[in-house]
């Protein structure tokens, strides 16, 4: 099975924000640079005045792939994996597991909204195509 992330001081807000339905991205309070993966200092201005902020939870597909190969026994395929430009966090992208029954319809430029699935102490983001989300 797929491993879960180790929780650290830096990344706990990202992996647990889903408990409140929030996509948390680290932002520098001094220069407003959005920072991902999260760090304790800003790589742009080197300020330590950085903190996780809730983003709108939407984004745009920058690229994607449809995985057809089962990498471990019983892995359900195919599924889509996207790289999503995160709204509200310029320059930040996340690797996005796309929750859809039709992975072949994922496309560059498509709008997505984040949902979360809790596994142990981690809330894993799942991204749902927005047209599909409205239909649900």
């Amino acid at each position, binding site marked *: 099975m797929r491993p879960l992330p180790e929780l650290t001081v830096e990344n706990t807000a990202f992996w647990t924000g889903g408990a409140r339905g929030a996509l948390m991205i680290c932002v520098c309070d001094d220069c407003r640079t959005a920072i991902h993966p999260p760090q304790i200092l800003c790589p742009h201005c080197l300020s330590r005045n950085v903190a996780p902020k809730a983003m709108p939870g939407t984004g745009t597909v920058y690229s994607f*792939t449809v995985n057809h190969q089962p990498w*471990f026994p019983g892995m359900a395929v195919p599924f889509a994996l996207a790289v999503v430009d995160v709204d509200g966090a310029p*320059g930040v992208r996340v*690797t996005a*597991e796309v929750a859809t029954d039709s992975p072949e319809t994922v496309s560059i430029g498509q709008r997505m909204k984040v949902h979360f699935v809790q596994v142990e102490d981690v809330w894993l983001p799942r991204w749902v195509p927005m047209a599909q989300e409205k239909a649900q």
Partner: protein
Amino acid sequence: MIPNKAAITGVGMSTIGRNTGRPAMDHLAEAALQALACAGLSRDDIDGIATYPGKADNSPGMSPLGTGEVRNALGLKTRWHSAVPDGPAQMAPLMVAAMAVMTGQARHVLCFRALTESSSQSAGQRASIAGSGRARIGGWLSWLVPANAMSASNWAGWMAQRYFHEFGMTRDHLAMVATGQRRFALANPAAVTRKPLTTEDYLSARMISSPLGLFDCDIPIDGACAVIVSAPDAARDCARVPLSIAAMGSALRSPETWDQRADLTTMGAHDAGADLWARTDFRPHNVDVLALYDGFSIFVPFWLEALGFCGHGEAKDFIADGNIGPGGRYPVNTGGGQLSAGRLHGFGLLHEACLQLWGDGGERQVRDARTAVCGMGGGFIAGAMLLHRD
């Protein structure tokens, strides 16, 4: 005149195979003794040893041997040793070896890479799957694997998809990379796959991670490769004409992640490639043979652009014009590459480039090859090296 540069003086490669059942050390010893014979050196001449990444058990069969085991097995007495998991990709041990011989730490460094991914896979352990079997994962992988993006084919798939989108490349272009390298492999007795590959075979093969299919992925093998890096004065005493390391490039200007680089139609190779040419008067048009990392076919056009053989977005036409296959002006991976000869993590590509520079390329020999460029790595890490036979 002997240039004051570190040089490659010998190379060796074991009999590469699928599911050989041979211990990694068996492959390694075969490769190392062959490299010694190639250089005209004895075991006692080797006073340095280097590898990438060192013994590692995080991915089955990925790196079964460290420097300690090899020193033990070959009875080496070294003045300097190094294993580099965190360096300019698979090029790292060659680069640190070059620096070691130029600072007097050693005279002849045995650099090696051994893999038993094929046997590991046959034993039911999937090779090259990040974090396989672990409950929790840290570092850069923790931003990929928990989202189910656990194979490098997924990460390379994003790069290919974006590149296709921006520049109009299609799978037909990648087919030219795969089938061209297979034609080279047909002339290489050491290649692990020597069955003809047609465009139809390529296009009809099963998809792995779109737009990358089966023949866009390199082949896990069991094998080992050894390369001896020598100091300039020591290289003079060797059996072969030394292959001078004319320049190396390892710049990185982007964060260490697969998804945060501002432009995913470029990769670490673009930083390292630019850095390479900043350190030499040679230019791409001086190059006779190219050894470009092809863990996935899409890395070949990326490396071509990274090293300035064509402009950004132009690789599809450069490939379609017949530049990189057999008979082309800029032949790439003349031994078949990892796509056809097997995944020796860049070392196999360099091995082939050295054979070409020595004129040992057999039926696939590129005429009068004197200068070769080698680029190793995909994604955010890369190392580039320029070799020249004086």
